[in-house]
């Protein structure tokens, strides 16, 4: 296995992915540089989660090549378990192991995969729990934690394997609004420590403040990418503008079935219309 530090952390060339007859990714070219924080945004069904999952080969690409830290993931002979040790993955639904305590969630892969001794694994686990502010939850079971605590524990679990690249698949989408901040703070800390991160998210404030680059996807292609102030502040494409308008100002959405360019939306008495209904 050869790793070349000068190469980007993630390189994707002409990636296609179909589920049956449904083509979800239609030729993606994409890179994440070493130490770079990239946020991928876009409407549901745009293929952004599939793209992220392809990087870790949780989805098998239909065509195209993917390199992670200089190793070709799409090589049929790739030592997938070895490459994945260098990639951390954080899921929307946390996926902590419910039958293990928080501490054992963090040590099991260290011990089974990296063959670390118990003492060393626990030392590293506790250091990472401290990093995410869960020192006192080491002996709790996941079911005893709040959603925000579970997600922070899941981040600590990934960090315990000392990955070079962290992938986040909508990490705050399953959380109660008041718990989102704790998780984003941990992620922001990671970014400031220089971790290479690829984040699929709906948190526009996080993308604006933390990302080095924002990528907007729609319909299985990358529509537009660039620094956050450009993509989020002055989007070039109509599709980006429409998406951002819906996400940033969900109550000012055109009525169902009417064109987006309709004049000033009429004031609706009672509940505001929900942006999700228009998707």
């Amino acid at each position, binding site marked *: 296995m050869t790793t070349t530090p000068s190469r980007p952390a993630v390189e994707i060339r002409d990636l296609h992915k179909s589920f049956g007859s449904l083509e979800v990714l239609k030729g993606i070219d994409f890179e994440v540089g070493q130490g770079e924080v990239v946020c991928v945004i876009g409407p549901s069904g745009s293929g952004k989660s599939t793209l992220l999952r392809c990087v870790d080969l949780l989805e098998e690409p239909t065509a195209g090549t993917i390199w992670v830290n200089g190793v070709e993931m799409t090589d049929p002979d790739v030592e997938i378990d070895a490459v994945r040790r260098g990639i951390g993955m954080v899921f929307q639904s946390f*996926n902590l*192991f419910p039958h293990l305590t928080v501490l054992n969630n963090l040590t099991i*892969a260290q011990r089974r995969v990296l063959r670390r001794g118990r003492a060393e694994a626990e030392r590293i686990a506790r250091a990472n729990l401290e990093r995410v502010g869960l020192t006192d939850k080491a002996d709790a079971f996941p079911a005893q934690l709040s959603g925000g605590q579970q997600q922070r524990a899941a981040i600590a679990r990934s960090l315990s394997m000392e990955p070079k690249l962290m992938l986040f698949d909508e990490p705050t989408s399953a959380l109660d609004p008041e718990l989102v901040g704790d998780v984003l703070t941990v992620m922001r800390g990671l970014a400031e420590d220089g971790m290479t991160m690829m984040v699929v998210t709906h948190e526009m404030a996080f993308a604006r403040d933390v990302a080095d680059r924002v990528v907007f996807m729609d319909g299985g292609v990358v529509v537009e990418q660039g620094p956050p102030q450009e993509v989020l502040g002055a989007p070039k494409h109509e599709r980006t503008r429409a998406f951002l308008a819906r996400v940033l100002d969900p109550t000012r959405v055109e009525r169902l079935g009417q064109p987006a360019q309709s004049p000033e939306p009429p004031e609706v008495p009672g509940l505001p219309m929900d942006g999700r209904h228009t998707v």
Partner: protein
Amino acid sequence: MKLRRRQRERLSLGIQYLVFVAIIAVVLFAADWGRLKDAFFRVDIIESMFPTIITVALRNTILYTLGAFAFGLVFGTVLALMRLSRVAPYRWLATAYIELFRGLPALLVLFLVGYGIPIAFPEREIPGGVFGSIAIGLGLTAAAYMAETIRAGIQAVPKGQMEAARTLGMSHFTAMRTIVIPQAFRIVIPPLTNELILLTKDSSLAYVLGVTAQTIEVTKFGRDMLNDRVNATPLLVAGLAYLVITLPLSQVVRRLELRYAKAR
């Protein structure tokens, strides 16, 4: 007069209790207790069954059951993994086995193992003698049932568990062994307990292999005593002996489930 709702409910419940008590009273007073006692509860016969029923018969019943359960559990887990395998021939093989052995009476399988294997391999013996034959003979059938239970348990573990384990660098096998299967077994504890209790009773089929005084189990022991003393008391004692196993077992499992409840 119209009754209020709570009055109606109380009246209805009162009638149900009355019927229940009446049935019990009829059975209690109408039965000929003297004859029943002579046929099923002769203290001298009960005394003559001890301690052998515990030290030999009950001990063997437990041994046969545990042996068959252990064999069935291991083999059943292998079958379950084969049914979920990506390799098609494994799936076919496991499905064929399960369909075949679920459909055959346990008695027949026990016969085939007890008499078929010695004919097929005259030079070799089944390790453990009668114990080994019963463990395998009953275990082969139990494995077919347990395989389906365990497969359902594995499939009930959310897909994200396997994914999370794999992204941490675990191989498919390690992830199965340390993450998925432990959770699957917690899910299938109740149906596996059922299987264990069924096996306890199936162990009474051991007689087809021709048990001796040393390898006798509870049912055969009771039947032998029945023929010997021309009295049904041994059957009552044998029945109680099974309850001595199954009732505490249910308690233990209930405790186990409670303990696992917080780790789910």
